[in-house]
Structures are given as structure tokens and as C-alpha cells.
């Protein structure tokens, strides 16, 4: 096949020693910024652009690809070990991953995240190389009504997946939805719930909320429990690496996560967060031991981690095939292309094939490099948890504050960090789940904008929401997720054996 020949040519470009070095620098930098909350790949690439101006285009784009994939890996490491999501797409990873780490299973959690990311990244990059034009046509055909239906599906599956009680889950979700309203409304340009504070006009940053609720809230809980806390964190219990059962429980979630992540990432308004939520909810449904969810189920790490890496490759589909930047990092990479006089767009594959294929090949190489770097480090990383608790939590606190304020040094930001940290403590104290708050903040504004766009385009006709086949299918799935268990109960007279069915 023509694509394979071109890809092989690309691999030759990417395997040149200088380019390998660029890829290595990229993945190291990417991992470092991925670990720090608030500072992400987009910012790093933006700041490096003026410096790399004089470098060879292939080399610097390869480095950017390394930073991009490295950021995804780094984000999950911080989530699992420190319960501090480094990137918004690794928030879900913290839920099960950190529970595993506290139970002495940090090693397998990190390993399943790394291998899952590798598997998903490789499959998705292959998808990018071979079927990008087809995928992008489908992705572009998604209208606002279809996105809205996708968000409805996410709300319906996710609200059921978190926490022990639906009421508590919904309460948390609505706190998040309310926080999502803060700031300038995109459609009308008017400020909402900003109370005249200019810093609130851009809304609440997802990483600020996540870091505050997870890391600071947790630190406060631990401090409040004081000597009464009897939980002892064991860094390693059993094997530091994945055992046979871990593999058995991981491989299907990896593949399912990839299938969710790649197409949603390729959609112009998809992003990397939604597939992680969907993957988590799906794995919880399919898991044979659903009671383990919330206490460190490896599926809850494997699936979402695969999903966010597949989505990261998906984002490159519209960028390379159409020149559409659909995420902050993609926008910066577009600026990188332009810096070298390349105009990404529908003709990029034709006008600069060497570079495009070199970039795709370097994604494979970055991915492999990350796996090789990360797996041996797992044993060292988990030792972090052996640090005595007061020091560990003090460290987490410093690290979380530094990351967030480093990204935006403002008093209001610090205030939000403290206020949301207290909120996190209160929610924990009264046993409300944390994750739905963040989910609400991410999904709420997206769903609102898509709904309003759909209605504005149809001049206020609500039927537009049900007139697209894609939207109908998604809404039907949402209804199934919501009422399925209830119907099952009505029909059989039994409680649905959640997850008992094999896929």
C-alpha cells in the first residue's frame, strides 16, 4: 500500500540519530510538564516555538510530538501516585489509580497505564496513518445536535458510575454544573456569576478545580484525621509489576478505550476528557467485580488511560488532514507548521509528505520510547509513597500549588484553590463523590454551547435535536443507560446483575 511505503519512508526520517535525540528531549520534557498540574504540553510547545525557530523543521516537530505524547504519560503518573491530576484528561485515572497505589498496587496501576497508553497510542497512530481521511469526513459531519446527544449520553452514563448513591452523585454534579456557568457566556458575550471580579470572566480552570478537590481536599482530610487515621500506605504489596490476572483484566479495557478515544478525539468538539468518562462508565458496567470500582479496580485505570492517548492521536486527524486545530496543543502545533512556511490544510499530505509521514512515524517512536523509559521507572516512582505521610502531603500541597499558580499567578487563582480545597474536604467528610464536580465543570459548558448552537441554527425549533440519525442513536443509548437497569428489573423481577454479562 502507498501509505505503508510513505510511512516506512517516514520511519527512516524519524530514526535518524538527531531526530531520535529530539524525540527523547521531547518525551522527557513532556513527561515533566505532564506531571505538573496546570502546565501542559500546549504551553510548553508555545514557549519553545521561538527557540526552535532556527532548528530543522522535522526535528522540532518530532520534538513537539514527543512533548505531546509525553504529557499524557506524565499526567497519569501524578494522578495515580499523588492523586493530583496533571492534565484534565487524567482526572478519571486518579479515581481508581490512586486507590490502587494506596493498596500497594501502584506498580500495576502505573504499568497498565503505560502499556495501555502504548497500545492505544500505537493503534490510534496507525488509524491516523491509514484511515484519517475517512474518519475526518465522519467527524466533520457531526453537527451541534449530535454533540449535544453525545453529551447527554456522557451525563447519563457518568452520573450513574460515580459514588454509592445517585442523589449524592447528582448533588456533586450540580455543584460542577454551577461552577461551569461562571464567566463570559460565549454566545451572548455577557458575564455570568462573576461578581464583578475580572479574573472570573474566563471561568474556572479545570485543572485548578481538579487539583484543589483532589490534592488539597485530600490533604485537609488527612490533616483533620490526624493521629486517628489508621491507614498505612504500603508502597508495594505483592508484585511491583502486573501479574497474570492484571493482564487478563487490562487488555480488553485497553482496546475498548482505544475504540472510544480515537473517533471522539478526531471530532472537532470531542476532546480527550469525554472518552475517559465514557470508558470509565463502560468498564464499570462490564467489570465482573463492579464492587471493586471505587476501591482500586485496574479496569478503571486501563480503559481511561487508553482512551486519552487514543484521543490524543485522534486530535491530529483533523489537524493533518484538514488543517483544523481542535485543541490547544493542536493549535500551537499548527503555529509550528506555519513557522516553517507550511500551511496545514487539505493539501498538506500532498505538499509536504516527508514531513507529515516523518511526524506520524515519530509518534510511534515517541510512544515506544515512553514505554521503555516509564516501565523501569515504575519501581522507583512507587517508592514515593514510602515517604512519611506528613512529608508526602506537604510535598503534594507545595507541588499542587506551584503547578497551578505557576500557570496563572493571581490572587484570585490562589483563593479559588483554597476555597475548592475546602469544598473538597467538606464533600469527603460527608461522603459525596468528588469526580462528578469536575465532570460537571467540563461537560456542562460544552453541552450548553452545543444545545444553544443547535437551537440558534434551527431558529428555535427543538425538533432539530432529534432529526439527525447520529443524535437519535446516541440519545437511544443514553436512554438505555438510564432506564436499562430499571427495565431489566421490571421484566425479570430481579436486580440487574451489573457486569455479569461477558462482552
Amino acid at each position: 500500500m502507498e501509505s505503508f511505503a510513505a510511512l516506512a519512508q517516514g520511519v527512516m526520517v524519524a530514526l535518524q540519530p538527531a531526530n531520535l535525540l529530539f524525540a527523547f528531549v521531547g518525551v522527557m520534557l513532556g513527561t515533566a510538564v505532564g506531571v505538573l498540574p496546570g502546565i501542559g504540553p500546549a504551553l510548553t510547545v508555545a514557549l519553545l516555538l521561538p527557540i526552535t525557530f532556527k532548528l530543522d523543521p522535522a526535528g522540532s516537530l518530532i520534538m513537539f510530538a514527543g512533548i505531546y505524547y509525553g504529557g499524557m504519560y506524565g499526567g497519569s503518573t501524578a494522578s495515580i501516585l499523588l492523586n493530583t491530576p496533571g492534565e484534565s484528561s487524567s482526572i478519571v485515572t486518579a479515581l481508581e489509580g490512586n486507590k490502587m497505589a494506596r493498596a500497594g498496587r501502584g506498580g500495576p496501576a502505573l504499568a497498565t497505564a503505560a502499556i495501555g497508553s502504548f497500545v492505544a497510542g500505537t493503534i490510534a497512530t496507525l488509524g491516523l496513518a491509514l484511515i484519517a481521511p475517512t474518519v475526518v469526513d465522519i467527524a466533520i459531519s457531526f453537527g451541534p445536535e449530535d454533540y449535544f446527544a453525545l453529551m447527554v449520553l456522557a451525563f447519563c452514563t457518568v452520573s450513574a458510575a460515580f459514588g454509592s448513591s445517585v442523589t449524592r452523585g447528582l448533588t456533586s454534579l450540580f455543584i460542577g454544573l454551577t461552577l461551569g456557568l461562571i464567566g463570559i457566556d460565549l454566545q451572548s458575550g455577557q458575564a455570568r456569576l462573576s461578581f464583578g471580579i475580572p479574573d472570573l470572566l474566563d471561568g474556572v480552570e479545570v485543572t485548578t478545580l481538579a487539583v484543589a478537590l483532589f490534592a488539597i481536599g485530600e490533604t485537609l482530610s488527612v490533616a483533620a484525621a490526624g493521629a486517628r487515621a489508621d491507614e498505612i500506605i504500603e508502597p508495594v504489596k505483592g508484585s511491583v509489576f502486573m501479574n497474570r490476572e492484571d493482564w487478563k483484566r487490562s487488555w480488553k479495557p485497553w482496546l475498548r478505550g482505544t475504540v472510544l478515544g480515537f473517533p471522539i478525539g478526531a471530532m472537532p468538539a470531542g476532546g480527550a476528557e469525554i472518552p475517559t468518562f465514557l470508558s470509565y462508565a463502560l468498564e464499570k458496567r462490564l467489570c465482573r467485580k463492579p464492587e471493586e470500582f471505587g476501591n482500586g479496580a485496574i479496569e478503571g485505570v486501563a480503559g481511561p488511560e487508553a482512551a486519552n492517548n487514543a484521543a490524543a492521536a485522534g486530535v491530529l486527524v483533523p489537524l493533518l488532514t484538514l488543517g483544523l486545530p481542535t485543541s490547544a496543543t493542536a493549535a500551537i502545533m499548527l503555529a509550528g507548521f506555519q513557522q516553517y512556511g507550511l500551511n496545514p490544510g487539505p493539501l498538506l499530505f500532498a505538499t509536504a509528505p516527508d514531513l507529515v509521514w516523518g511526524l506520524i512515524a515519530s509518534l510511534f517512536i515517541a510512544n515506544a520510547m515512553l514505554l521503555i523509559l516509564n516501565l523501569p521507572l515504575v519501581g522507583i516512582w512507587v517508592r514515593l509513597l514510602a515517604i512519611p505521610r506528613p512529608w508526602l502531603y506537604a510535598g503534594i500541597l507545595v507541588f499542587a500549588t506551584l503547578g497551578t499558580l505557576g500557570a496563572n499567578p493571581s490572587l484570585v487563582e490562589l483563593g479559588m484553590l483554597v476555597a475548592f480545597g475546602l469544598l473538597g474536604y467538606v464533600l469527603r467528610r460527608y461522603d459525596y463523590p468528588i469526580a462528578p464536580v469536575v465532570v460537571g465543570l467540563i461537560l456542562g459548558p460544552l453541552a450548553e454551547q452545543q444545545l444553544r448552537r443547535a437551537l440558534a441554527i434551527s431558529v428555535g425549533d427543538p425538533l432539530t435535536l432529534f432529526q439527525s440519525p447520529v443524535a437519535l442513536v446516541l440519545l437511544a443509548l443514553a436512554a438505555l443507560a438510564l432506564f436499562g437497569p430499571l427495565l431489566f428489573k421490571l421484566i425479570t423481577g430481579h436486580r440487574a446483575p451489573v457486569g455479569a454479562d461477558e462482552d
Partner: protein
Amino acid sequence: MAFRVRPLSRRSTLAALALAAVLPFGAAQAQVGDLRIIAPAAPGGGWDQTARSMQQALQADKLATNVQVMNVPGAGGTIGLAQFVNGSKGDPNALIVGGYVMVGAIITNKSPVDLSQVTPIARLTGEYEAIAVPAASPLKTAADLVAALKADPQKVSWAGGSAGGTDHITAGLIAKAVGVDPTRINYIAFSGGGESLASILGGKVTAGISSLSEYVAQAKAGKLRILAVSSAGRLPEAPEVPTFKESGIDVEIQNWRMVAAAPGITDVQKATLTETIDKMAASKTWQDILAAKGWANTYLSGPAFQAQLAKDIAATQVILKEVGLSQ
């Protein structure tokens, strides 16, 4: 902006400073010493790229010894502007980058500070707006679009950037120019260039309105048709596209970027800074950057720029009221 960046999560002065320190500094003889440029946006966007390009040009040609860029993102640049106005009064080494978007943001955000409180130095670059429709659209010319707009403004949906931004203002001005009530335009705001472009390519909206550069590559590939541009004359990037005025729409608008100095500096200090920026704009480094980034050279400094700025602010206040975004 050269392309619209979905608002990057806001970010980083610390990191910016840390990396700026790595940049090679020009040495030896310089006209002004240290310069501090505030980019009131996150790294990567148009204002940030402008500030960093200035840094590059000023240092390469030794017009300044040491140039630092600080990012103060937020609220259409008004947060950075407020910090600049309050923090650098009388400081002859402080500059801020800004642009037309800031003019609108100051009004819609009811910003406590405005551009009358800084000392405008020069307009650096500008971009022109364009209207595009999907290749399969029945609308072939700007006149067709105007006819559709006159028939029922609600049925013509426009995809563009955030409400109150240059795209929205342009759509409002077009409606007004052809005698349609600007409050009735059906404007759909998108936060990222990619998303709004996708909605046009997918045929979800009637037309798109944005910087010309966002549409050129798609038009070359035959996926979009550009109906008209907002410049005074035809543009080299798309010579076949008529201007709004040629198409009978009396609108001319430029999404410009500028540099301004601190409030309360002396006339001598202002003259020195203007001279430095004049030299920078004439330098080969700056011209090369403009060419590489595809930025149009619409340089204007001194009293001519101040007059143009005052005119733009007044016109924007009027149109934002007319589209119903401010009182």
C-alpha cells in the same frame, strides 16, 4: 490572530520567564536598555506571538539590550491591561501588546481601565476579515448572501469567534450597511478556529466569518468559497476575491495588533520608544517575521495611529450597542 486558538488554559508567567531566560540576549550598543513587554494573553495566541516576535526583532538588531515577555492572560486582554495601567505608571521601559479585540472586550466586560489610559505607540500588523461559504452552498457571491440576509436575517447563520469579537462586529456592520437590523443577525459563536471551520465545512451553518488566513487553504482545496474580504483593495493571498465595497457592502475593517507604552511617560520618552519601534518595523528581521507568519504589514505610528485608534473605538462602541451587546 493568524489562527484562532481555543482559549488555552491560562498560563504562565513563571514558566515564560524561566524559558525567556534561556533565550539568547543581544549584546553591546543599544538604544534603549531593558524592555518589558506584557502579552495580555496566554502563550501561543496572536498577541503572545506578536510580543515574542518583537522580542526577537528588537534583540536581533540590538535596538534593546534585554527584552522580556510576560504573559498576563484573561478576559480579552483586559486583565493584562489593568495590571499594566496600574503597575507601570511612568515606566519608560514597559510596553503592552494589544489589538482590536481588546477594544470590544473593554466595552463588553465593562473594564475599569481602557485604552485612553495607555500611551499608544504604533499599529504593527493587521488581518482582514473574510466571509466564506461551503463549496456546495447555493450562495455564489456576496450579493447572494446579502439577498438572503434581507429576505430573513434569522435564516442566515454565521459561524465566527466569541460574541463581541471582531467577527461578530463585522457581521453586525455588514447587516447595518445593507439595511438589516443588526440585532436580528443569527450569529453562532465558537471558541476555536477549528470548531467553527468544521461547522462551515460540514455545512452546518450558512456562512463563516473570520480572518482570511483561516479560509485560504480550504478555498485552494476547493472545500470553501470565499465571497468577500474586508480590506480597502484586493489582497495578494486571494486576488480573485472581491472586497466588501466592490460587492456593494460599505464596510472596511481590520483586526489590528498594536503596541502601547505606559501611562504618564514624558514626551521625550514617548519619542524614544516610537523611534525604536519605527526602526524595528523597518528592520529586515521584522519584515522576515511578517512574511513567515503571513501577517500583513499595516504599520502606522505617531498621531496618524492615535487618530485611527480613536476612530475605531468610537465606531466599535456604536456597533456593539447596535448588535445589543452593550448599553
